[in-house]
């Protein structure tokens, strides 16, 4: 029996002994977490089995074939896990990783601030050591799911005399305390997918400093490097919808909450798939000018897709990544912007309607009012272009004015009671 077949058999046997769809989700996931099958690529000391990514894929495959639910995946939890596994202390791993896998604990990311968006390392939320506790003051923003979260991944400034990247420290903060106030942030499209988090003398114990004091930027990079992948995984799991048993009912309830912030994301990307059906429905397909716009959009969207395919094919063939691998986000912005224009042209006067009265029960209006977000979220187009120009094309950087002590760097807001 090949190694992979043996793993597959072992997982299947374990599942046949333990799987019961009438269990509640938390009890089942506790079993999964303690067995090591919930995160088999993690170290065996921390709820894993030291398996390779390929072997882990076999385990996931076996779960999927058996129809069993795996460890919790959704939201920021996996970013927390990856960061803690890479930088956390033994005690932190013991304390937090299990609750991540069982789904007991929700996590959120506390990085961006009103005064530091693109320039994330310019954060001015401060943490000051008083006795055995870090006292945190400041404001964070764009915090998905913070209103459900027990724990936050916090980037805060602990040294104002160091250059800006070196004065940051990474913490786990308990969100359920009097010094932390979470407010949902309403967006221009009517959704509220994010929060603002206000911290006023909030408390973090010394044990919850992750990595080294002043080493927060490295930890934050680990978190961000895994950002996109975790969202992909969360969506994959939705395939198990409609199964019978208490566990699936629990799972659906969990997804409903976890995916709520993302329901408008497809509309944010422009819904190119709806263009042809809508153009036929409205008759705009017969207008020569609109046909040109539709064709332009089709070309751009297909080219973007094929460019992604080229990047994947090159990776599969073991070739070094070419420029094609760095352009997806910028291409997606252009596609969404053009799609919004085309949907407007197709809808004519109906494009001024909103809510249930607009075409497709409001879906078209949601496209038109959501696409402006895509060229901002997760890095603006302007930052993307800087990255492409500097890292892909090798062009020189702009002169900087922020490499001295952070205290002296010009910025939007002064931290409360600085110094």
């Amino acid at each position, binding site marked *: 029996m090949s190694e992979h077949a043996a793993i597959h058999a072992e997982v299947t046997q374990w599942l046949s002994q333990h799987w019961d769809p009438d269990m509640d989700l938390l009890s089942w996931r506790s079993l999964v977490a303690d067995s090591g099958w919930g995160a088999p690529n993690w170290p065996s000391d921390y709820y894993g089995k030291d398996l390779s990514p390929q072997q882990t894929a076999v385990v996931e495959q076996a779960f999927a074939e058996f129809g069993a639910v795996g460890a919790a995946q959704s939201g920021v939890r996996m970013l927390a896990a990856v960061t803690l596994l890479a930088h956390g202390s033994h005690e932190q791993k013991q304390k937090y990783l299990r609750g991540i896998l069982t789904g007991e604990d929700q996590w959120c990311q506390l990085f961006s601030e009103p005064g530091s968006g693109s320039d994330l390392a310019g954060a001015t939320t401060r943490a000051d050591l008083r006795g055995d506790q870090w006292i945190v003051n400041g404001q964070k923003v764009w915090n998905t799911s913070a209103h459900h979260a027990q724990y936050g991944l916090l980037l805060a400034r602990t040294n104002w005399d160091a250059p800006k990247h070196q004065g940051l420290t990474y913490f786990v903060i308990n969100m359920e305390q009097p010094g932390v106030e979470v407010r949902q942030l309403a967006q221009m499209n009517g959704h509220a997918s994010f929060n603002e988090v206000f911290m006023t003398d909030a408390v973090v114990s010394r044990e919850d400093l992750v990595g080294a004091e002043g080493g927060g930027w490295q930890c934050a990079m680990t978190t961000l490097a895994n950002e996109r992948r975790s969202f992909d995984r969360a969506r994959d799991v939705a395939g198990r919808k409609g199964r019978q048993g208490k566990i699936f009912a629990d799972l659906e309830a969990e997804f409903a909450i976890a995916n709520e912030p993302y329901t408008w994301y497809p509309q944010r990307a422009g819904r190119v798939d709806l263009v042809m059906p809508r153009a036929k429905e409205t008759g705009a397909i017969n207008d020569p000018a609109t046909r040109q716009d539709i064709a332009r959009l*089709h070309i751009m969207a297909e080219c973007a897709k094929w460019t992604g395919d080229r990047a994947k*094919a090159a990776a599969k063939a073991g070739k070094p990544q070419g420029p094609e691998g760095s352009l997806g986000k910028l291409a997606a912005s252009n596609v969404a912007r053009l799609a919004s224009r085309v949907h407007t042209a197709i809808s004519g006067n109906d494009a001024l309607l909103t809510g249930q009265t607009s075409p497709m029960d409001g879906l078209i209006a949601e496209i038109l009012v959501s696409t402006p977000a895509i060229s901002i979220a997760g890095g603006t187009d302007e930052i993307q272009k800087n990255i492409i120009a500097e890292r892909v094309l090798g062009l020189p950087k702009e002169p900087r004015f922020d490499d001295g002590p952070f205290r002296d760097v010009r910025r939007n807001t002064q931290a409360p009671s600085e110094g």
Partner: protein
Amino acid sequence: MALAFTADQDQFRDSIQRFMTDKMPTTEVRRLMAATRGFDDETWRQVSDQLALPGIHIPEEFGGAGFGAVELSIACEEMGRGLFCGPFFSSAVLSAYALLLTGDEGQLDHWLADLASGTRRGCLAITEHSTLWQEGDINTLAKADSDGQIRLRGNKRFVIDGQTADLFIVAARSESGIGLYLIPDHDPQLGITPLDTMDPTRKMADLHLDDVPAIQLTHQPEHLLQTLLNVACICLANEMVGGAQQLLQSALDYTQLRFQFGRSIASFQAIKHRLADLLLEVELARSAAYQAAQTLAACENLRSLSPSQANKLTEHASLAKAAASETYLQAGLETIQLHGGIGFTWENDTHLWFKRAKSSEVLFGSPAEHRERMLTAIEDAATTTEDAA
């Protein structure tokens, strides 16, 4: 569909790149574009003998190397990058595919091997009034005279390398419809008028056919002109992507060397963002050109395409032509702009590629025409699927 090249294909590309760097520097391009003939016989012989490029996609039984559309498009891309002056596109691409689509065994034996070896240089004459090679546009007539000799009568426009070719393939109308006819050599009844083209690196001529004796190429496959147009567009799209890449490279090189206000102008975001946008444009067009070449390579028999194959080939060919045309021209405009005043001088090389971009933009149909053609193919495909269901 595989969108990564094999190691052999990468090596093939490198060998063409080395040849182009060596034999086709811009000093040579400038020398040839100023000459009436427009190419160098010795260089063409080397392209044919050393690199065996004219027969790269021609089956081995007819003297070619037996590779396919992907290798051919690599050659086109590299020639576009280096602004190759020579009858490759007219002979190896257009004429060879015209023969492959319509010649019988004997005709292929006789003529295709000569094109594969580069000993003969073919040209393809289809265009009369409109650009998209519609059957309705073909007014040139093929008629048998009293001796049974077929004679062609009519006018053809924008024939690439028409003034230097020694084999002419002409689309004409007879009682049995539109077919291709071969004129094996110069003829007193064949008038050739060279055109003053903006892009002097691609020579063109008008043909005046005054009862020129010709050989009928035997097969008249369905979609003949449209398939030929698709091949032309796919190869031209790959050529254009090579040219656009060269323009981008020259803009990158120049902006990094150029210092103003005490810094390299490539360190200004106003410049960097334009270059990042241009890179995106070029890579998107490249994907379209590569995908279209793959789609062409996937057609096992171009003479009998299924309706879905024909629609997909048309969709991807027109998509690639429209995308590459817009991108190449944009790259030309941006590169001139990024050079500043020097970019508008004759001495600077940018205009050589800009002019190729401009002529390629309208050759075989404008981007707007191809967008419409692509969308029609998509609608036709949807109708065919519905009918089948």
